[in-house]
């Protein structure tokens, strides 16, 4: 237990200053990722999952964003207190990111070969020729057919799946320790999603990288994740091993999410949906942020914010009534 985790986020707090007031996008998020492990961060839009990732990458737009508290420790060093120059060396080299929409995340006026080669030239100071050879290798590595011929092509000449492979190649170029994938398959066709996800998982195993997978797709998560963190209104409401979480959720929100996945054995029945809408981040409700939508909410829930408590070894939840939820029979 003396080893330092690859990445540890401690009590991170991020605010956005908007016209309607201060939006508390992230309110004390903590998680750790170890080498070779996959942490899936699950949550609906606006739950703070992407903002947390942007804070880790150091690409939050500040202003309007502001990190008001917490630490982000990469191998024990706090990224938030580092100089911009040090952080830039880590970005892309040790911690890399895969974005949701590869078409808009690749520069339209530069060839993909140039953009891949740029990674080696910026971080390794390679010559143009060397970097280019490495770019072709990388394209082969992510199984782009005819890499040698296509290295001079531009992003718009590739299909969506191929473009996402190029994004993956860019992120993997320098064999980073940690990859953050922000909804890497959301913009893709369903048929291509699985291919891209499998490729990512395979490369992750091979390089023993840590992976933070940000998604709202429960199906993707079940296949590849080791640990799942469920976020709601800027907080982690439950964090658990993937099997435990799927079998017995400890938070009513997690339970609601799982129940709202269509299931073959419930064919014909009405699909469950969590009632209500996520709260506005500028005026979070008092007490538990989920209480207005929670069927099991009590007066305690509406008055006191539940602390994040351990409910089992390696498993936490933020609910006053986690015991009841945990023991409830599966739907």
């Amino acid at each position, binding site marked *: 237990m003396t080893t330092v985790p690859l990445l540890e986020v401690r009590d991170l707090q991020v605010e956005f200053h908007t016209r309607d007031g201060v939006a508390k996008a992230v309110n004390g998020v903590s998680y750790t990722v170890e080498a070779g492990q996959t942490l899936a961060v699950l949550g609906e839009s606006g739950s703070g999952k992407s903002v947390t990732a942007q804070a880790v*990458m150091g*690409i939050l737009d500040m202003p309007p964003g502001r990190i008001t508290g917490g630490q982000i420790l990469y191998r024990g060093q706090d990224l938030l207190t580092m100089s911009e120059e040090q952080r*830039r*060396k*880590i*970005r*892309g*080299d040790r911690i*890399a*990111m895969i*974005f949701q*929409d590869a078409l*808009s*995340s*690749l*520069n*339209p*006026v*530069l*060839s993909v070969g140039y953009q891949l080669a*740029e*990674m080696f030239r*910026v*971080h390794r100071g390679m010559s143009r020729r060397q970097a280019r050879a490495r770019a072709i290798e990388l394209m*082969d590595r992510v*199984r*782009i*057919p005819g890499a040698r*011929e296509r290295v*001079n*092509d*531009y992003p718009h*000449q590739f*299909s969506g*799946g*191929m473009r996402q492979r190029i*994004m993956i190649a*860019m*992120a993997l170029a320098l064999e980073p320790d940690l990859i953050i994938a922000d909804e890497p398959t959301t913009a893709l066709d369903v*048929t291509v999603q*699985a*291919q891209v*996800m*499998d*490729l990512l998982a*395979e490369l992750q195993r091979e390089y023993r990288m840590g992976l933070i997978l940000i998604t709202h797709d429960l199906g993707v998560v079940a296949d590849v994740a080791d640990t799942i963190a469920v976020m709601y209104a800027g907080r982690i409401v439950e964090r658990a091993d993937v099997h435990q979480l799927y079998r017995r959720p400890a938070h009513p929100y997690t339970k609601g999410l799982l129940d709202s996945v269509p299931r073959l054995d419930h064919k014909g029945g009405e699909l469950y949906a969590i009632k209500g809408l996520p709260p506005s981040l500028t005026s979070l409700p008092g007490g538990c942020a989920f209480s207005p939508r929670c069927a099991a909410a009590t007066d305690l829930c509406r008055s006191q914010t539940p602390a994040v408590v351990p409910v089992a070894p390696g498993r936490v939840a933020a609910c006053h009534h986690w015991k009841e939820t945990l023991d409830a029979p599966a739907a």
Partner: protein
Amino acid sequence: MPDTTSIEKATGTAPVKVGAPLPAPAKGRSLWADAWHDLRRNPLFVISAALILFLVVLALFPSLFTDVNPRDGDPANHYLGRPELTHWFRPDWFGYDGQGRSIWARVVHGTRASILVGFGVTLLVTLVGGLTGLLAGYFGGWLDSVLSRITDIFFGVPFLLGALVVLNAVTDRTPVVVMGALAFLGWTQMARVMRGSVLTTKQADYVTAARALGAGTWRIMLRHILPNAVAPVLVVATIALGSYISAEATLSYLGVGLQDPTVSWGIDISTASNQVRNAPHVLFFPAGMLSLCVLAFMMMGDAVRDALDPKLR
């Protein structure tokens, strides 16, 4: 190495060669190449390019078209009658002006001043304005405030009035001086266009992605933002080139532009204007060349805009 097992597992079908059915696109065609492809097929561009090419050749090698000195006049030719339009490229083709100088020779030699001022001012304005706009747009904050206010101050000065005042103070008005004066007052337009364009481009996902993958400030600015932001500036610059040429002619007409040893259409228009009833041809040819020249650059600007920004069409 490219095993397909994982794909098979994922899709549950026979191994498919990933991406194979893609239609092979033309190899390595950048957006610039696309724009060029469009341009070459645009008659507007072809015509204007031919005109501009012709004018540039006139400006560079006037002696190819006439061997008459445009400054030498023969009093015997004073306002000598109608142009001999059958005498191609001969001194009396366009007739003679009040000092007996060949109008054809003057029109040919006057091209250089106009083209020089047009291109020179455009170059200066694009460099100064483009750089200002790029810095203001990219860095934002106090730098943007300072640069934008300076731009606004210059923008507030009426273009011609400002040039009149500036040039009145200079006694030796060579083409370089006139270029400097026009650029001094004209760069604000480019700065504004560039700033706006950079502000838009800065929001692009690929800029965030470049940042997330460790590119530094200058690399992001010059490699990722500038090439994507420069198109509107090019369009405005091409159109503005024509207006700088007409501004030079206007100033020369008003007597504060280029001065006598320099041959310029503006000067000729000015001297011809008081004899327009007796010898309309003396006014017609320099004025016609000026219009043709400005028209060519405006048409070119339109064509460039169509090619670079199909959305605006």
